């Protein structure tokens, strides 16, 4: 067979392995998340199906497959079906350039190179991942638009605005790493870290935090899961979906989490490497797995710990805090690289900026805190100054004595 044919065979086998692995990881991620969240809340979690609940994902999948899959009468049929398919397609495709190990060293022929542990070694690797994962917004917007439902449409619009807002910060915070690495290729970025003897989290602490926050917002996870805010939008764009079509959206969300964790591990934690220990056969997969699992645990931890933030806060945070900080990070890193300074200069600058921002936030939090330690609400901060008009349910005039709000919130009586 020709080299090209061997390349096709290798790519087919690796793609199937990647897809099956991602789907399995998704299934068990749902179980792990439920178990870990339960532990956070001092519950046990699902432990009945199989030993330790290990068959729970199978039970869930079967249940989902045999649910009634209905489509609202007013839905656009084609787009309604396209949306979940597009979501999961984008999620699976974005993983193509993530390196799970080094290029093969046991031969230089094209056949040997084709079996390296990643689907493709394209030279624009990180750009490809960013581009493909930002396509995820299409699935969500189409789902919300085609459902023919107010909640879905609002959830989809919110999601779109949120994703594009944080997308900018992602692109800019990656720039710092690229300046140090001097390449877009994912494998070469890891090689650059080995060559310079550091993980880029040390040289780019600010970039790491910015990328992390923006990535959580990008995959719509808590505390940025506004699009599916159960309390105000029912389930956002998911409202009208049921059964396997709903599962496809969940699948896309979890696979996006895994991809994001992999990118974080590759860019900032040296990917599959750990000192000199990645030379052992099979070890790269273990280091890579540990790093990704660490980030996935942080995703769950954040969901268990932080309350969902309000929409106006979310947008303000993305544009007014994350974006200027990532520009600042890019400029500082550029100065360090341009003047050929040591990597720890960049690290110290990053830590200094983090410290300053934290102090500012702490001081502002103290100033805005409504109730001080004595329990007295200060008169100067009325509810009007804290909540914008779009979030308030009732208008409260601080100068008037409080009246019972029950009549104010009651909707006008309508006859059907």
């Amino acid at each position, binding site marked *: 067979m020709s080299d*090209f044919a061997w390349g*096709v065979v*290798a*790519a*087919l086998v*690796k*793609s199937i392995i990647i*897809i099956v692995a991602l789907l399995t990881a998704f299934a068990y991620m749902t179980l792990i998340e439920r178990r870990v969240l339960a532990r956070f809340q001092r519950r046990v979690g699902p432990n009945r199906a199989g030993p330790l609940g290990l068959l729970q994902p199978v039970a869930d999948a079967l249940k989902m497959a*045999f649910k*009634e*899959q*209905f489509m*609202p*009468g007013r839905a656009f049929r084609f787009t309604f079906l396209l949306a979940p*398919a*597009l979501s999961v*397609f984008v999620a*699976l495709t974005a993983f*193509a350039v993530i390196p799970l190990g080094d290029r093969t060293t046991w031969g230089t022929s094209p056949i040997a190179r084709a079996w390296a542990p990643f*689907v*493709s*070694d394209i030279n624009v690797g990180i*750009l490809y991942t960013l581009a493909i994962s930002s396509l995820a917004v299409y699935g969500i917007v189409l789902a919300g*638009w085609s459902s*023919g*439902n*107010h*909640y879905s449409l*609002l959830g989809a*619009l919110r999601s*779109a*605005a949120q994703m594009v*807002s944080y*997308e*900018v910060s992602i*692109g*800019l915070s990656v*720039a710092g790493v*690229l*300046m140090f690495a*001097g*390449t877009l290729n994912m494998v070469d970025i890891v090689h650059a870290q080995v060559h310079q003897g550091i993980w880029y989290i040390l040289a780019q602490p600010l970039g790491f935090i910015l990328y992390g926050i923006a990535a959580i917002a990008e995959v719509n996870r808590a505390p940025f899961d506004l699009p599916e805010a159960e309390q105000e939008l029912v389930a956002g764009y998911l409202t009208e979906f049921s*059964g396997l*079509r709903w599962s*496809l959206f969940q699948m896309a969300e979890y696979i996006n989490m895994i991809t994001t964790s992999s990118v974080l591990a590759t860019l900032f934690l040296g990917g599959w490497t750990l000192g000199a220990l990645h030379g052992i056969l099979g070890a790269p997969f273990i280091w890579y797995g540990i790093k990704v699992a660490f980030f996935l645990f942080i995703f769950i931890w954040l969901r268990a710990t932080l309350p969902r933030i309000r*929409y*106006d806060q979310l*947008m303000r945070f993305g544009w*007014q805090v994350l*974006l200027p900080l990532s*520009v600042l990070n*890019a400029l500082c890193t*550029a100065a360090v*690289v*341009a*003047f050929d300074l040591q990597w720890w200069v960049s690290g110290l600058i990053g830590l200094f900026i983090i410290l300053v921002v934290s102090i500012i936030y702490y001081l502002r939090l103290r100033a805005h805190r409504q109730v001080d330690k004595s329990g007295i609400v200060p008169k100067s901060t009325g509810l009007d100054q804290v909540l*914008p008009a*779009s979030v308030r349910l009732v208008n409260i005039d601080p100068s008037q004595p409080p009246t019972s709000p029950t009549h104010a919130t009651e909707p006008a009586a*309508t006859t*059907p």
Partner: protein
Amino acid sequence: MPDFMPVLILMGLAFAFAVLVILVTFILGPKHPTPEKLAPYESGIQEVEAPRSRFPVKYLTTGMLFIIFDVEAASLIPLAILMRQLKVMGLIELVVFAAILIVPFFYVWRKGAFAWE
């Protein structure tokens, strides 16, 4: 472009998987549509206004701002890769480029483009 061939194959398989699942949803599961079930979910109350009506223009403004600043980020990436070779010249270019975009950034900030009320 031999490097992109595996990506296309993965795309093809992912597409096939997605289409397969969507087709399966037509076969499995009961089908008992009723008018109530087919009505859009509205928290149990009668629908007042048709959906897909006009939505706040704010979202559109955000989208336009995104295009401006994301193009900035995209044009920054080639500069970032070559920063080691360009040295101080690259830094000057970056500062000029950033300054051109920081001025409109503060302009739209003052105009209230980032405030959601």
